[in-house]
């Protein structure tokens, strides 16, 4: 099941590994993505830590770790095809995987709550 952060990342947890990407709302707000800077495997991140950068034609935005743990993999395919983030943000456009350290933060939202959050912006 997908969970969502207020910084517009999505998280999918499978067997202690959290896969992270940005939401459809986020990719739409950013516009055409032209560059992504991904974290190195092995980097330990805390909740809310800026660990990736996504750049569109117009602007640069940080992507934050929505969970704490160790980065085990980044999506290298995005480097050559950053537009994948626009085309399939919740699928092939994933950013990185984190080996969870501890429980998920309480303030992650489910899909309905995230939809209401976006609506309120």
């Amino acid at each position: 099941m997908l969970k969502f952060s207020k910084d517009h990342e999505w998280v999918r947890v499978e067997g202690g590994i959290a896969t992270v990407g940005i939401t459809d709302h986020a990719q739409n707000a950013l516009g055409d993505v032209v560059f992504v800077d991904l974290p190195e495997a092995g980097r330990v991140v805390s909740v809310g830590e800026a660990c990736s950068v996504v750049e569109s034609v117009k602007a640069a935005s940080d992507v934050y770790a929505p969970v704490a743990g160790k980065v085990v993999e980044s999506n290298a395919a995005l480097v050559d095809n950053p537009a994948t983030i626009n085309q399939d943000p919740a699928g092939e456009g994933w950013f990185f995987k984190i080996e969870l350290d501890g429980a998920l933060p309480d303030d992650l939202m489910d899909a309905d709550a995230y939809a209401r959050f976006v609506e309120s912006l």
Partner: protein
Amino acid sequence: MAEELLETPLASLHRELGGRMVPFAGYAMPVQYAPGIMAEHLHCRAAAALFDVSHMGQAELVGEGAAAALETLTPADVQGLKPGRQRYGLLLNAEGGIIDDFMVANLGDRLFLVVNASRKHIDLPLIEAALPAGVRLRAMPDRALIALQGPGAVAAIAGLFPGIDALSFMGVWQGDGMVVSRSGYTGEDGVEISVPADAAEALARRLLALPGVLPAGLGARDSLRLEAGLCLYGNDIDETTSPVEANLVWSMGKRRRMEWNFPGAARIRDELDNGVKRLRVGIRPEGRQPARQHTVVHAGGEAVGEITSGGFGPSVNGPVAMGYVARPHAADGTPLELMVRGKALAASVAPLPFHPHRYAR
């Protein structure tokens, strides 16, 4: 509480077209439509794009001596501008800094001016204060400005208004209450159309109905002008930059450079004779990562300048930028490092424009 945003005469059309409205220079303007900046940019280079630039300031100067009066504020040759022709110029302060850049057209019985939206409240009082008796400045807030840009733009509009296609670059056509100049801010062929506000939406709809014409927002306008190497006031030029530093000496008339009777002439003459400390140049980052405005530029580990406009060039298919660098580092090909988020990004000085101009000659 934010100040109430102004709207252009095309505001409701933008909303109908799905424009994403953002604040710009006090106006609600479309930054993009549904296709996005990349698609709008590429469409402009391939066919024709319609931009609403009604936020810009329009004004007329009327009366004997209008051109001479304007020349007291600019090094442009206004008196030598022939009827039916338009020219780019700079308003300068007493120190030779750039107050604004503008277009001036000779309409025969009057001069027609277009200035930046963000500067019109400064420019118009400044011009007014410089006028002798008998010359009058008339601001024209009751007019819209529409740019139609791209290789298909002139053929398209000439289907509606025959004769426009006979204009050469910077030529001006008048008819049906409109002032149309063959000019723009994209590096492409095209026109800029001044039209009464109450006729603007109907005209925009007629233009959008022409084959190949799609709306484009301020986002594409910015990436197009950056690839074309054109300055954005407030980014690339301001009251601290001189025309020589900004590499805009071409906008100064030859006669004016013999008379030296414009604001800041002493500084500019000195810079032309003895060189400048810094120069505006094109900067091409290596790889794919853009470097944005205010990025510090290094050479050999030492800070030598700053990026004033930077982003991704959809037609170049890579990052592009411009900025000021110390004169010894301004030659084409000079290696630079751009300090992006604490890392040095390799780049080099590159000739402008990044994408060749395709003006009508």
